[in-house]
């Protein structure tokens, strides 16, 4: 079987001591920073991205992937112990997780999250290995028109995840696309929007912009209120779940994994959507439905399994098509490009060690997380007590140094400052940043495929509709747009996001 050969190749990469170390460091850093409230996977990766530039492409991506699921995992720890979701995807975990903690069952809740995540991670790894090759083959039948339409689906879907006004989200996407075009035009070499500066010839600095928009503006938001956080941490108690707990975990774990794996593949999907959907479905099918909201272990297991599965399978479109399905994947694409790897269906053939190495590393990383977290939970809890006043100046310093180390010039750091202010202003105006970043990353790609498609069709724009696959994708985009713009749906969507607070 090919899949075993491929996974074998992957494991031979990840089991090299140096890569094992990067995987471990990634999972560890992700957990450490993810546990700190208010810093989710997005900010964590944006902050730590520059650290990975000096590594090999394999090492870099393995570490970033580790940071991603590590920080996701760290987020559920705070969700259970503090009722503070470290990131949006663990928001539903707070509902039953923290109830369990209040009843003195924090240990089994943490174990349920850990075991559920590990099971989902294992299943999703196999799914990725299975799906990657056929999807890549499909990708080769993609022409520029299909790529353009697919990216449009991704962009439109990102609106579904933004919680505010649809018009604003579309505007943010377009603004991102526009700013993403800054720099030298690849076809003609013409300078665009550089305002006469030499520094902008290579475009705005993606990392600096991401760090400013997410990291710095988040700090500003946290400093709005003068009250410093006083954390009351639930006692953990016995970690090992009882036999009854284990029995109740099995079905939700499987259901969560299936839901998460599926939603993760969809553009615009990923961990957040997966956990919400899994929780709601579980609430409807579980024989213990009455306990939901009062500390049902199913209410922790299912969303945690789903969000981990979703996080993993969201790598599929990124690795096989070169298209980010969510913002974290956009950051990963940025990292690939910086490493000199052209993202897309070519990766699997041109860089098989990188491709399969990342996939195998996901399983290894998940196993490490389980070992890192359950026995050492007491240690992570102590991190929760670091006061924010100590934390935020450290984050600022990290942002600056990280960007400097990438560009070797102060210019990127100025961009952080500007992006920070703009990001804060935009969130104050209820404009969401993730669609902007997705647009920013996709801008150049979208333009390239648009121009190429139009060139091939001799300027006939109907090419996007006459090619069946492209038409199908555009229809999907249109349906998503109509669905999210429809008042009844958007009201429902708001309810979901209100619940999260």
């Amino acid at each position, binding site marked *: 079987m090919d899949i075993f050969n491929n996974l074998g190749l992957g494991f031979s990469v990840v089991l090299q001591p140096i890569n094992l170390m990067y995987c471990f460091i990634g999972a560890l850093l992700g957990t450490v920073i993810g546990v700190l409230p208010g810093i989710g996977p997005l900010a964590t990766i944006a902050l730590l991205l520059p650290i990975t530039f000096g590594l090999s492409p394999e090492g870099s991506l393995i570490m970033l992937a580790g940071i991603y699921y590590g920080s996701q995992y760290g987020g559920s720890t705070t969700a259970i112990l503090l009722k503070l979701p470290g990131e949006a995807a663990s928001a539903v975990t707070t509902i039953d997780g923290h109830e369990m903690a209040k009843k003195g069952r924090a240990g089994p809740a943490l174990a349920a999250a850990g075991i559920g995540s590990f099971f989902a991670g294992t299943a999703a790894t196999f799914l990725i290995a299975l799906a990657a090759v056929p999807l890549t083959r499909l990708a080769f039948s993609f022409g520029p028109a299909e790529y353009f339409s697919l990216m449009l689906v991704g962009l439109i879907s990102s609106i579904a995840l933004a919680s505010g006004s649809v018009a604003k989200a579309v505007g943010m996407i377009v603004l991102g696309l526009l700013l993403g*075009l800054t720099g030298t035009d690849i076809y003609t070499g013409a300078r665009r*929007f550089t305002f006469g500066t030499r520094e902008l010839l290579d475009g705005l600095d993606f990392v600096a912009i991401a760090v400013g928009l997410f990291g710095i503006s988040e700090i500003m938001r946290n*400093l709005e209120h003068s009250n410093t956080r006083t954390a009351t941490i639930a006692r953990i108690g016995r970690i090992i779940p009882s036999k009854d707990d284990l029995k109740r975990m099995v079905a939700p774990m499987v259901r969560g994994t299936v839901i998460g794996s599926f939603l993760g593949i969809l553009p615009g999907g990923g961990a957040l959507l997966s956990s919400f959907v899994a929780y709601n479905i579980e609430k409807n099918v579980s024989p213990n439905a009455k306990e939901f909201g009062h500390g049902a272990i199913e209410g922790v297991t299912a969303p945690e399994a789903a969000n981990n599965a979703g996080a993993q399978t969201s790598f599929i479109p990124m690795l096989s098509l070169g298209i980010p399905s969510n913002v974290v994947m956009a950051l990963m694409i940025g990292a690939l490009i910086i490493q000199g790897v052209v993202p897309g269906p070519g990766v699997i053939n041109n860089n098989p060690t990188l491709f399969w190495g990342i996939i195998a590393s996901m399983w290894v990383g998940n196993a490490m997380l389980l070992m890192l977290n359950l026995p050492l939970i007491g240690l992570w809890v102590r991190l929760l007590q670091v006061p924010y006043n100590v934390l935020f100046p*450290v984050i600022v*310093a990290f942002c600056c140094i990280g960007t400097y180390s990438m560009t070797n010039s*102060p210019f990127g750091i100025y961009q952080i400052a500007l992006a920070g*202010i703009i990001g*804060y202003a935009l969130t104050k105006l209820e404009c969401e940043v993730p669609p902007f970043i997705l647009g920013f990353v996709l801008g150049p790609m979208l333009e390239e495929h648009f121009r190429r498609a139009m060139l091939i069709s001799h300027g006939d724009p109907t090419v996007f509709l006459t090619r069946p696959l492209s038409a199908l994708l555009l229809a999907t985009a249109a349906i998503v747009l109509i669905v999210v713009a429809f008042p009844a749906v958007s009201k429902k969507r708001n309810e979901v996001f209100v619940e999260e607070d």
Partner: protein
Amino acid sequence: MSFNRKDFATGAIFAVFALIYGFMSLTTMQVGTPVRMGPGFFPAMLSGVLLLIALFLMARSFLRTAETPFGEIAWRAIIFLTIAIVVFAATAESLGMLPGTFVAGLISSAASRTMTPPKALAVAAGIGVFCTLVFTVGLHVPLPIFGSWFGG
């Protein structure tokens, strides 16, 4: 006259970007034809779309007047964090890692209302030492511990 200030402001910001970028695309770049697009074609198209969205938001701001409160604005954080970052950018190479991160840490500490000067000094010193050890000594970020102002 009442209107939704958030929608209106968003629309205005979008409009400014759309006009500036659209103007630049149309005047300073070749637009070309749909078959042979110049560098200005795609950005001009995007600017047009953005302008439409901006007009829609501004028009809607008069119809949909209810809005959620702005809440407090963290002026102090905006000012001090921005200064800290700009100062670091401007002086990092001359100051070097240790003094540079110390200064940046000290200025950014002022962003919090609950920070006292002795605590800020301690935090800044900690940041300086920590960043020097991690980034210059450990990860070999090309920033000397002491920069040119210290003869480094």
